[in-house]
């Protein structure tokens, strides 16, 4: 009844609003008929009312204001305009043309009417301002007659001899380094002619009408540049561009976390960005791309096996019970970000597996990516609603540009090799006989271009990565097609689709007695009781495959029929399918009758998203952009599994071959839907205030729980646009943001349920979920503030942010009283958590002399989490020594500690010691780029993670079973010599079997790893006539420093749960190997 009343009220409200709006529309349309008529064909937009009043305002802002007030699109490059050229114009009653005449007066700029926009461009050399009146293609500054403007435009059109064309070719490079800017867009302004630069930076524009034209080159992260040239019929005109990297790029458009899109200057929160044009190394997957590039973002690998996925955290953990993996969007389409399921038999021991999981992010071809935007917390993610508290990562793939086809190809060949991860007398923990130097190879090709209204980007790729272990490999095929269609200037369709087919074969590994690690690590104390290579190698008959098919498709329609108003609709579908199959064949040493399981798992995410905005000039200096929208996301996860055992004999079985078969099925669907409204107030284009909210409903909320409201407010202030600001001081933007977001409970968490269970062929029910009708999402509120600054002419940039997150009504799995039957825990909104920290991202060009240069950069982030309240619930364990305890990190590693580890005495034990957080509290990422003559570049990038603790299970599992272990070599020697009294307390605890306890293997997990060192060589510098090719040599993860108290294994190794682990612990896995890659990139 309640929901019915709500529906009716909402319906009536909606109808009333629509009626009101329609009535207003009709009235306004009638009264403003004259304004509308101006936009009709035959009537110049220059005749529209300017409605502009500016006083002593910088020229770029004056033009922005004119654009907003008049509704006429003005095309200009802010970076080319004189910033400190104040203009004044009492143009309230004047036309656009008249206003432009006044505000461009005395500058070296002119304006041209081209279609439905007005181009502001530099006056060609040789024509001083006063001479412009004489030019047939230039409008008069003082034209007072409307007809003059029309006539001038007509002259402009007529002056182009359309029957004769020429060609423009050239090269786009980075101004400072002379590095080719592959993918930069070059176009003839005011026309549909354009092209993308190839990997050598070269471009060619064909069929350019002869006569004077303006050529524009632009690329994300760089200031656009324009050159005016005269094209001769049948001739080739050469134009080269040197783009200057924008230090702050305040006018760059970002879309993640904003309603529709916004310029950076308007945004009150920090936005991390990875621009692929600035990534030198060959990127093997998205995990690899994200690693150590954005402050506050950590990617922790799970193992060194093929296909292993990485755990991603933005500003640590915001949830105890739910996933902390951020939401991921590709071109506006939500995709699955949690890992694929682990390939484990649905019946039998849950350790029989490769014990690792793949990441859905790695189904995306990194070669297709143009850029990545990262927003890190609730202050920025409010508009994503209930599921976005852990942050949002948005990936943008490449698009085509009108012009000739540009082909790009890349070939990668590499070797991967495991680095030592144990003491020197057993550096590979006895795995040596099975390790190999593995071959990796990748091939990618793409073509992009466009003609008329249609643009395309099509790509394909193939990766074949061997692992360093037997039976360990990944073969991946990737296809993408991105198509854009603009039938009119107000309508644009974009359809992006990708398909990935990935087959992963893994070694049985992890904590798995049927696997390689446990048996090799333990040698003659293994489950065979035999350490010979031949015996242990029997586990390699165990086949583990994961066949992944992935389709991501999304269509976006931009429809902007009314000036100042935008509409964007996106419908997307992500289908991740995995067939997990594992076979222990008939005759397998540890299960002689054989076992087979096949799981068909799929996760479908359907996204429907609408965002609209309306720009409104309120006063001379004040404007407003009102945005609204809605989003619905449906996620359905299905798993159908079969299990068979006891095969009649050898051969390749199917599930039906087993004497005993079992079947399993799970289906879970969750729907989330919400609305948002936001308003941005802009004052003098340097003060910005944004306020908004989102209302959400979710199918997993309890039935007594209503819709959720998440508010946001943010502000930014571009101080450096003030008149008092001196140019040498650089640029400075201050910003602050507050917002709320949430995390929804699971599909069944709110309901009291019973599990249907079989009991020997008979149906049975077992207690499932206790249920909580009041269950709702946890709510994370975040305040962040900071600044973006560029100093010393942009040679130094600093992005500083301080954040404070507080998660209230946190979902805790509250343990129930066992004697009340439901021994399981129940999610309740009882807790309170916080995260605090800072993020600094700084770059500096240390020197830049002719062909030499050195750039350095540093990302620093801290994260300090704390449980503020348990809401009366007792402290509880998340496993792996991870605890939720008031006043301690989320989670804190708690266990016993030996207080006199190095003393030659019996251990003194402190009970319930709080070691520290499980997630790193400090991440430091230095990087450097050395530019050498010939555009040869050497880059290096490292990452230091520190302040966290992990339990290392591999040593415990072996030592508690009396396995001779390399960390105890000294202890064994002393024991053999009868010198037990010379053992340290730590040795007595770890190396004498009867004393072994898990607690003694909690390590500080601090490490520094050299993530990459890359040498990029334009082949043209070495081999003549190969200037469209670049050779890149790269080494990855080849050197590591670990804390001295971390004696064995690797800090970047995970446990059986892989990237999905709630508390990281180290299990019986190999670390990520070092990878050495040679990559050749060619465009043509």
């Amino acid at each position, binding site marked *: 009844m309640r929901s019915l009343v709500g529906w009716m009220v909402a319906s009536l409200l909606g109808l009333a609003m629509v009626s009101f709006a329609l009535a207003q529309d009709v009235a306004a349309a009638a009264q403003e008929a004259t304004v509308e008529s101006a936009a009709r064909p035959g009537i110049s937009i220059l005749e529209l009312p300017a409605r502009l009043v500016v006083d002593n305002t910088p020229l770029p802002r004056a033009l922005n204001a004119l654009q907003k007030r008049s509704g006429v699109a003005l095309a200009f490059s802010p970076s080319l305009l004189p910033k400190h050229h104040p203009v004044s114009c009492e143009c309230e009653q004047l036309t656009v043309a008249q206003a432009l005449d006044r505000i461009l007066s005395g500058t070296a700029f002119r304006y041209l009417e081209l279609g439905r926009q007005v181009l502001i461009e530099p006056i060609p050399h040789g024509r001083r301002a006063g001479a412009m009146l004489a030019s047939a293609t230039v409008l008069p500054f003082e034209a007072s007659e409307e007809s003059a403007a029309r006539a001038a435009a007509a002259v402009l059109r007529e002056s182009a001899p359309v029957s004769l064309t020429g060609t423009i070719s050239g090269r786009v490079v980075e101004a400072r380094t002379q590095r080719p800017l592959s993918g930069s867009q070059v176009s003839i302004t005011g026309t549909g002619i354009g092209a993308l630069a190839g990997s050598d930076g070269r471009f060619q524009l064909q069929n350019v009408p002869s006569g004077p034209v303006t050529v524009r080159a632009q690329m994300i992260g760089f200031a656009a540049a324009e050159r005016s040239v005269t094209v001769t019929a049948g001739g080739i005109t050469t134009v080269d561009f040197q783009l200057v990297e924008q230090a702050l790029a305040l006018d760059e458009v970002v879309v993640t976390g904003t309603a529709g899109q916004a310029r950076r200057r308007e945004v009150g929160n920090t936005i991390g960005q990875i621009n692929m044009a600035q990534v030198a190394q060959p990127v093997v997957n998205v995990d690899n791309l994200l690693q150590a590039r954005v402050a506050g973002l950590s990617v922790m690998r799970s193992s060194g096996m093929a296909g292993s996925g990485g755990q991603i955290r933005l500003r640590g953990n915001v949830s105890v019970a739910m996933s902390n993996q951020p939401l991921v969007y590709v071109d506006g389409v939500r995709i699955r970000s949690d890992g694929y399921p682990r390939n484990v038999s649905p019946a039998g021991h849950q350790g029989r597996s490769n014990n690792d999981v793949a990441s859905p992010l790695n189904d995306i071809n990194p070669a297709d990516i143009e850029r990545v935007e990262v927003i890190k917390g609730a202050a920025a993610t409010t508009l994503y609603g209930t599921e976005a508290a852990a942050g949002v990562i948005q990936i943008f793939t490449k698009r085509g540009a009108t012009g000739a086809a540009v082909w790009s190809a890349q070939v990668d060949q590499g070797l991967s090799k495991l680095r030592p991860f144990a003491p020197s007398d057993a550096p590979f923990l006895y795995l040596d006989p099975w390790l190999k130097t593995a071959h990796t190879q990748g091939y990618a090709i793409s073509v992009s271009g466009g003609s008329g209204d249609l643009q395309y980007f099509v790509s394909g790729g193939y990766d074949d990565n061997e692992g360093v272990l037997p039976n360990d490999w990944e073969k991946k095929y990737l296809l993408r097609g991105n198509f854009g269609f603009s039938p009119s200037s107000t309508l644009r369709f974009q359809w992006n689709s990708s398909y990935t087919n990935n087959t992963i074969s893994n070694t049985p590994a992890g904590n798995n007695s049927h696997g390689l690690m446990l048996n090799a690590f333990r040698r003659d*104390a293994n489950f065979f009781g035999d350490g010979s290579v031949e015996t242990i190698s029997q586990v390699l008959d165990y086949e583990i495959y994961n066949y992944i098919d992935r389709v991501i498709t999304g269509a976006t329609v931009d429809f902007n029929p009314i000036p100042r108003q935008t509409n964007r609709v996106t419908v997307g579908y992500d289908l991740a399918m995995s067939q997990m199959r594992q076979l222990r064949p008939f005759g397998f040493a540890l299960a002689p009758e054989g076992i087979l399981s096949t799981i068909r798992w799929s996760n479908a995410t359907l996204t429907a998203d609408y965002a609209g905005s309306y720009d409104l000039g309120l006063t001379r200096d004040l404007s407003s952009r009102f945005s609204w929208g809605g989003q619905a996301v449906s996620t359905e996860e299905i798993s159908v599994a079969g299990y068979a055992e006891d095969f009649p004999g050898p051969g390749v079985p199917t599930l039906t071959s087993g004497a005993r078969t079992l079947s399993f099925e799970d289906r879970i669907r969750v729907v989330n839907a919400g609305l948002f409204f936001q308003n941005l107030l802009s004052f003098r284009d340097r003060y910005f205030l944004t306020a908004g909210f989102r209302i959400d409903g979710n199918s997993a909320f309890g039935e007594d729980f209503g819709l959720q409201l998440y508010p946001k407010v943010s502000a930014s202030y571009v101080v450096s646009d003030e008149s008092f600001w001196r140019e040498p001081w650089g640029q400075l933007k201050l910003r602050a943001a507050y917002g709320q977001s949430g995390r929804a409970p699971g599909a069944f968490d709110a309901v009291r349920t019973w599990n249907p269970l079989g009991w020997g062929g008979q149906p049975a029910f077992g207690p499932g979920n206790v249920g909580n009708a009041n269950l709702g999402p946890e709510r994370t509120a975040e305040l962040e503030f900071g600044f973006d600054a560029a100093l010393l002419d942009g040679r130094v940039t600093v992005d500083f942010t301080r954040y404070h997150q507080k998660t209230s009504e946190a979902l805790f799995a509250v343990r129930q009283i066992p*004697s009340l039957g439901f021994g399981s825990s129940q999610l309740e909104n009882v807790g309170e958590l916080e995260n605090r920290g800072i993020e600094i991202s700084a770059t500096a060009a240390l020197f830049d002399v002719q062909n030499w240069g050195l750039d350095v950069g540093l990302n620093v982030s801290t994260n300090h989490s704390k449980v503020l309240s348990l809401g009366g619930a007792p402290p509880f364990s998340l496993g792996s020594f991870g605890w939720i305890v008031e006043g301690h990190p989320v989670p804190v590693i708690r266990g016993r500690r030996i207080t006199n580890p190095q003393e030659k005495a019996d251990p003194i034990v402190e009970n319930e010691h709080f070691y520290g957080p499980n997630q790193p509290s400090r991440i430091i990422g230095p990087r450097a780029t050395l530019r050498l003559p010939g555009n040869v570049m050497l880059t290096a990038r490292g990452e230091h993670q520190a302040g966290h603790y992990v339990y290392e299970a591999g040593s415990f599992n072996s030592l508690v079973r009396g396995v001779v272990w390399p960390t105890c070599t000294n202890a064994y020697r002393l024991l053999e010599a009868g010198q037990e009294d010379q053992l340290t307390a730590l040795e007595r605890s770890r190396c004498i079997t009867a004393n072994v306890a898990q607690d003694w293997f909690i390590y500080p997990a601090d490490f520094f790893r050299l993530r990459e060192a890359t040498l990029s060589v334009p082949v043209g510098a070495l081999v003549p006539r190969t200037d469209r090719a670049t050779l890149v040599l790269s080494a990855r993860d080849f050197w590591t420093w670990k804390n001295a108290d971390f004696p064995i294994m690797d800090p970047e190794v995970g446990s059986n749960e892989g990237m999905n682990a709630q508390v990281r612990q180290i299990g019986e896995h190999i670390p990520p190997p070092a990878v050495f890659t040679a990559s050749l990139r060619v465009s043509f």
Partner: protein
Amino acid sequence: MDVWVRKSVARSLSVPLAAAGVLGLGVAACDLSVTNPGPVQDDFLNNPAAHAAVVNGMGRDLGQALNYISLTTASVTREVHPAGSQGAFGILLPMQQGLLPFDHSQTSSHWNMAQRARWVSEAGIRRLHEALGPAAFEASPLVAQAYLWAGYANRLLGENMCQAVIDGGPAEPHAVYFERADSNFTRAAALAQALGLGTVRTAALAGRASTRAYLGAWSAAGSDAAAVPTDFVYEIPYFVIDTDQYNRVYWSSANQPFRAHTTWNTVYASYYRVTEDPRTAWDENPDVPVGDANVLDLGRVPWYFQLKHADRESPINLSSGREMRLIEAEALLRDGQWQQAMQVVNALRTSVGMAPWDAADLTEAWTRLKRERGIELWLEGRRLGDLRRWQEGGTPGALHPLEEPGGASNLHADRALCFPIPLSERETNPNIPING
């Protein structure tokens, strides 16, 4: 505000308001309720068609609790000796030493499972009563079965837990479980009698006999036992559908690849070697002579694998006529009639081809009975309760040294004879002090 601005504002607002209205309609019409298959909502269990599954669930939970407790207590009482693994199908270090610490996760999990079995059956009976109404309730064979499961669930708790806690209440003497078991068995027997359910009735009487023995009501126990034929067996089944339902005593020592326990260094190893009593059968494998890991400070120990539970689906006895005979024998002992008691014991032995025991006096007869009960109920999860009640009752007769702490048994001096109220109950139940 001039006319133009007002018009502009009106027009500007109209578009977003229209869109907001449409969005509002859309969301209001959007049905966010989702029905997911799989787990069943609580109300659905009131449907009579679901009651068979409700009652089967009681049996399943009982079986799971007994499964785990059987393996753990087998180590604590040295029905078996630990031989290796401590992981998923192994025996953890404290339990290898005979300890059951209240703050150990394993102690909590065993308590939780046993409590769940009790609550599910008792709450299920209340549900059936409410759903069926009094008349149909009394006429339902499912209700009789439910009372039987409730009886055995309470007996399991009474035999193995140090104290009773009922439905979040305070700690009480463990006899409370037996009293509840007695009541449930009585109702089961009565309903089964009325409905002509012979097996259920006999099982209820057998369960009540063992319960009353624990309560010290030996006369009543003997009367119930007498109604149970010697060849009667009532067992809980196990299945391969999930690992919790594998017979853990078998699977944890099945070389798949765990060889977590052995009969080596137990009284049953030497006994079987000499007598080949089929009730305590074990074997060894020259290809795999030792357990799968070092144990305590013993290194690798010989792996003698039990044969009583032959596969994952081997059932475990809940009651048997042979147990009833031993109850009768014990009742006779307590009455001082040790010769008659020995006759009963020896009748059981000769029925399986074993030589009769000799006993010279009451004390020796107690020793024999204690040994015989261990042999007869080997690996059925009953030994811990027996050892406790004999210790608490100060009964005469000796246990074998390999069953006692210290010496060659490798049991800790503080070997436990029951599970204390664990941390899981203490930290959640406001009626139980954390360190009480």
